[in-house]
């Protein structure tokens, strides 16, 4: 079955690449911020700074939700469409 997505993919084979790279970069950005927040929370919780712990938790949670929600936009894996694609015939049939 041919659809818009498929023809797009065929017309712009680099697009998948770019989307994936973008998603991964965004996630790495989120995670580095989370590491930073966690580090701060650990240090500050020792100082009984409850507000800080709560704020960092909310921030971290939002980033986790964002980075999981980003997964929605992961491009589909290239599927082997054996029905539509003509197969290469074995070499013994020239």
């Amino acid at each position, binding site marked *: 079955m041919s659809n818009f997505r498929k023809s797009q993919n065929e017309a712009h084979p680099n697009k*998948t690449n770019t989307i*994936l790279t973008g*998603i*991964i970069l965004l*996630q*790495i950005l*989120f*995670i580095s911020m*989370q*590491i930073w*927040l*966690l580090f701060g*929370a*650990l*240090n500050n*919780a*020792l*100082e*009984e700074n*409850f507000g800080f*712990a*709560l704020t*960092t*938790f909310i921030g*971290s*949670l939002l*980033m*986790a939700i964002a*980075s*999981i929600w*980003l*997964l929605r936009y*992961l*491009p589909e*894996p*290239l*599927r*082997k469409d*054996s029905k539509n694609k003509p*197969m290469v*015939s*074995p070499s013994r*049939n020239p």
Partner: protein
Amino acid sequence: MAKKDSGKEPSWKADFPIESKRATHVSRREFAKFLGLLSGAFALSNGFIVIRAMAFPDERLEGEHFVVDADKVPVGEMLQFEIGGEDLIPYILIRLEENKWRAFEQKCTHLTCAVRYREDVNKIECPCHNGWFSADTGEVLQGPPPRPLPQLEVVVREGKVYVREGERENRAV
């Protein structure tokens, strides 16, 4: 014969069912998913800190604790002692002057090494990473420790030294 084979995969392909192109693709997808999982784990551990802070608020030291007779500690000396029920917390008692006493937690606020009082420079030293604290207030003077040393208030009554939770900002926990 040719017609029959044309729709079929060559038999070696059955042994290696993954196309190389597809393999690299999937692994990047999996990496992205793993990053999502990692991100969730970070959020969880941050939440854990919040729960810990809510469930186990730091306890104040109750009442006064006898440490030592005052004449056992000469001026400029430091004495180690411990207080606590289940987990003992080490403290140091310092006699700065005849009537000037200080008590601090002995665990460095950096990585909990044992600090010690250095009389020659009148400061508290953490030997692990060259951290220095004021012997008077417990403030960080130099080095990596992020917070001042938690302090206890010292009371001397009838030649006996007692410590109790002070009203100071960097109180002991």
